């Protein structure tokens, strides 16, 4: 199974070396090949599975609970300005 590794890497914003491209190409191809096996089965009367567990309607009440440690979150930003996360230029 062929895969456009450069396209997939770009979608995930990963910079891959030529060596890595080769390795992952092969590995991802094998995974796709494996999934391809399913196409041989007749699944016309089976609806797609979205979840592996049989649970539904897990919800919370609409209550505000303020986070007590915003500081730790802010620390994850390499640069903070005006209490906002500084990000590089978006449009070149």
């Amino acid at each position, binding site marked *: 199974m062929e895969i456009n590794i450069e*396209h997939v890497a*770009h*979608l995930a*914003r990963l910079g891959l070396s030529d060596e890595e491209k080769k390795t992952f190409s092969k590995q991802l191809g094998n995974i796709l090949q494996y999934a391809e096996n399913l196409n041989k089965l007749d699944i016309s009367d089976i609806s797609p599975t*979205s*979840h592996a*567990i049989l*649970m*539904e*309607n*897990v*919800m*919370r*009440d*609409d*209550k*505000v*609970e*303020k*986070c007590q440690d*915003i500081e730790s*979150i*802010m620390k*994850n930003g390499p640069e903070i*300005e*005006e*209490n*906002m*996360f*500084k*990000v*590089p*230029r*978006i*449009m070149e």
Partner: protein
Amino acid sequence: MSKHETIIGLEVHAQLKTSSKMFCGCANNFGDPPNTNICPVCTGQPGTLPVINKKAIELAIKTALATNCKINERSVFARKNYFYPDLPKDFQISQFDLPLAEHGFLEIEVDGNKKRIGITRIHLEEDAGKLVHKGADRIMGSDYSLADYNRAATPLMEIVSEPDIRTPEEAKAYMEKLAHLLEYIGVCDAKMEEGSLRCDANISIRPVGQKEFGTKTEIKNMNSFKAVMKALKAEELRHREVIDEGGTIIQETRFYSEETEKTKGMRTKEFSHDYRYFPEPDLVPIAPTKEWIEEIRKTVGELPDKKENRFIKDYGISETDAFFIVSNSKMATFLEETTKSYNNPKAIANWLVGEITACLKESKMTFDNIALSPNQLAEMLALIDNGVLSRKVAKEIVLPELLKGSNSIQGIIKEKGLTQISDEGELVSIAQDIIRNNPKQVEQFKSGKEAVLMFFVGQVMKATKGRANPDAVQKILKEALKK
């Protein structure tokens, strides 16, 4: 010009009025200092798990019921994967192949013609954060940007219309109708200018009679109902011009500029629409029970169209006034509350549409936070009927005081000495004084210029500071002038 028809479909995003965010307990508040309503869940810290806000589902179901949609027995959240600095998780939790509701419609009216616009689907998703661009007033040319995640993961409802809209006017009518409905049933503030309601439009044209759609473009950045119409008019014209000149329309996203009143394409290469949706593994499906839906149905209440008809039929209010009153849910409720203690809906409607609206406008206030209560209005109208207050005094003195927040009508009347002069003897003596002091006008009246009577009425009203009943004054003056 070519014989083409225009095809428009609208994607509307509405911010839901919940207290907390879509999947965490952070406050869903507009205008707080940056990054004060964030937590590990909505900023996508590793190991955190989202939990669905029940209220958000209820508000979306409420909308589905109000727009005649079918609520799906089972709906699933999905991840939409893309990178952008306003999206801390690098994916947006949305819905894809199994939305909350489908197959509804909304009825609009343009130039007296009613038309049904289909609603393809309603689904829930999370909003993105906000970016502040530095070094320029927009993203283009800026040096860097700052991200505020207060809005990230707040609940957003997307309502997608069928491509049933044929003119920019219809698009505007649809937006206004939808906004009104959302505000009415209390799910969204629905203010386009503030971004609580947003709209993207898909537009294409095709030769009349052709079945296949032409190539469409997507228009973004329309920040008012009027802008929706203007942007679509501009884009419709551009499509026609390109096609008339033998060119082809390229499928792309275009931004509307309020300044130039034109749409402008953006380099589309940057946006790869390869979102790789897959079911959100951290959220289990939503399967609303019949009982739950029925419970929500009870909260929908009477929809605006129905209310308007009832006001016209049962209350005898004119179509224009009924439309005006119903277009503000608070005013409609106010009217109904007032009728409980004052049984003349038409008179109440007249005051709401006329004096009260004018007075609010003059003092730059809005009906949304009106200080006047339905009981006060009922009391004031009864005092006019009983002859205690003159209409003029009620309108010019009592009403403005009440709108400013005074809470006792009796207090205002006492303090300002406003009771209508009902003692006929007092009015007669005032009238006589005025007649005596204006011999010239008396002469004119007696020589047949009956219009001069209004001069005398005016003088009496002035002398009594409006505390006289104009009809009674006219009667008294006519008699006094005969002598």
